[in-house]
């Protein structure tokens, strides 16, 4: 990230914001009603409309929304509008399984996503594989956020603070408030962070109009400099559009941390209204972030590959030079970016901690452990994993978009267990397990080879094979059962 010549006032604001997160964490810890896993990991299943909507928003719009989306808009141009449709598709995807899942979670007291999988498909192999997939996805997710945090701290300090130490400090703050307050703390800080992000998006719209010469001249310039980035998708581009909507729309709807928020909703009505709100937010949030990326094509030409992920930082640098209002805008925007990164990372870490506590420690390592002991084990696990990831975040050399895509390749293969599980009562565990294994082999294999047949993401191709395997195995098992019945 480019160095930003920030003033003391800006740094005090950021420090105050970080301190307020710790205060909220402490306050949330005082609100705990008991030491059960449900209270710690789901906030006692009492999340109201605004907190639920803002925490879903903050969880779903990560550092990628601000750095990755602008970077990708810069790289590929207007065909990246597919991300707007994808974010709406996420909510359409929820409609296919969330109502039933929420009802079941209240009846059977689910804590982790895997609790539903185990309830619906009683197979140890399937639940272990799903848990493994979710852990890999969450680790990938946290890693991407830490990587951006490091870049940001280095840029803010003009290279005087090493990325590693910046990430260490932010990670410790994040872990303290999520450890002491659990989901309540994470959701409350998410609500504040979500509100800050929304304010950040308003500021971006103002920046474009006020400091970047306005929308109209910027797009005129874009038409002259890079007309190819204004072109509609060609045949292959349309396939990639379709694949992106499937990949993100279905994949993001089964984020482990999002599923836990479905469990944590106070009532079906609360969840309904929150999802309705979530369907409107992309029209504003995604559009302004993309517009910033498009405008940057004309303003900062020539950035390629991972360098394009820096357009947000370049724009902030420009805005800073416009005087006191620029400083205020950038300071608030920095708060919003930090909010986006921390809200996503803390939710993912809490989900990771719950999967370890409930699905691994409480089930396999120490089945007789109390809820409080399981929660403690989950907290230790989150600290350890975070320690490893902090180190790894300074070693990796992948672009943000590539990291972003990898988790969807895997999540997409887990989705049938939820989507089909709630809608098809006759479906058994063997077809889902075989489909998951097939889909994972195709998706991860394809991803590692950089394979994109006809413009389809490897995860989408994996889902296709996954689905075919489920259908084949389901009907093969049904025919076998019918044959046995007839023979009897």
């Amino acid at each position, binding site marked *: 990230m480019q160095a930003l010549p920030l003033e003391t006032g800006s740094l005090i604001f950021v420090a105050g914001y970080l301190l307020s997160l710790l205060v909220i964490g402490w306050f949330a810890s005082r609100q705990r009603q008991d030491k059960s896993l449900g209270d710690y990991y789901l906030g006692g299943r009492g999340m109201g409309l605004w907190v639920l909507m803002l925490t879903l928003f903050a969880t779903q719009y990560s550092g990628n929304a601000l750095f990755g989306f602008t970077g990708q808009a810069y790289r590929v141009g207007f065909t990246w509008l597919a991300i707007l449709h994808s974010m709406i598709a996420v909510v359409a995807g929820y409609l296919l399984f969330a109502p039933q899942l929420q009802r079941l979670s209240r009846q059977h007291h689910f804590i982790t996503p895997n609790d539903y999988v185990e309830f619906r498909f009683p197979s140890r192999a399937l639940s272990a594989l799903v848990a493994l997939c979710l852990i890999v996805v969450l680790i990938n997710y946290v890693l991407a956020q830490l990587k951006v945090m490091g870049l940001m701290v280095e840029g803010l300090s003009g290279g005087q603070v090493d990325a590693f130490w910046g990430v260490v400090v932010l990670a410790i703050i994040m872990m303290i408030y999520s450890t002491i307050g659990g989901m309540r703390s994470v959701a409350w800080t998410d609500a504040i962070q979500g509100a800050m992000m929304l304010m950040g998006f308003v500021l971006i719209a103002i920046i474009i109009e006020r400091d970047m010469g306005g929308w109209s001249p910027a797009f005129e310039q874009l038409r002259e400099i890079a007309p190819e980035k204004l072109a509609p998708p060609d045949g292959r581009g349309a396939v990639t559009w379709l694949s992106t*909507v499937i990949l993100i729309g279905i994949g993001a709807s089964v984020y482990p941390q999002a599923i836990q928020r479905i469990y944590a909703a106070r009532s079906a009505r609360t969840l309904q209204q929150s999802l309705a709100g979530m369907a409107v937010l992309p029209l504003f949030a995604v559009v302004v972030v993309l517009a910033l990326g498009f405008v940057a094509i004309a303003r900062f030409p020539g950035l390629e590959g991972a360098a394009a992920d820096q357009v947000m930082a370049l724009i902030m640098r420009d805005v800073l030079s416009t005087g006191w209002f620029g400083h205020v805008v950038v300071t608030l925007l920095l708060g919003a970016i930090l909010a986006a990164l921390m809200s996503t990372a803390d939710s993912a870490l809490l989900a990771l901690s719950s999967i370890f506590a409930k699905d691994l420690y409480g089930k396999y390592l120490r089945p007789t452990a109390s809820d409080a002991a399981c929660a403690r084990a989950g907290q230790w696990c989150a600290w350890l994993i975070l320690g490893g990831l902090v180190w790894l975040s300074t070693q990796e050399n992948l672009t943000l978009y590539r990291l972003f895509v990898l988790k969807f390749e895997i999540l997409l293969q887990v989705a049938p267990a939820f989507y089909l599980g709630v809608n098809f009562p006759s479906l058994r565990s063997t077809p889902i397990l075989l489909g998951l294994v097939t889909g994972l082999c195709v998706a991860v294999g394809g991803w590692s080879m950089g394979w994109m047949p006809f413009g389809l993401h490897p995860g989408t191709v994996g889902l296709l094979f996954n689905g075919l395997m489920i259908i084949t195995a389901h009907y093969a098992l049904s025919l076998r059962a019918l044959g046995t019945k007839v023979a009897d």
Partner: protein
Amino acid sequence: MTQHLKNRGRWSGLVLLTALCGIPWYWPDDNFGWHAWLVPGWVWVTLIAAIALSALVVWAALKGWPDESVE
């Protein structure tokens, strides 16, 4: 399938996902003959489609939720 997809929300979700995936297949090379303000016509049509689909998702979330007494 019909038997299990018996509420409007689930049907709406399916239809919306299909529509969202299918949209770019209909962009003509001449931008609908519309050389619009700021950006080409296909971009405006994409944005209008997004607004319409978002409104449908809101409707489906609020009105298409399954009736628990029926389920």
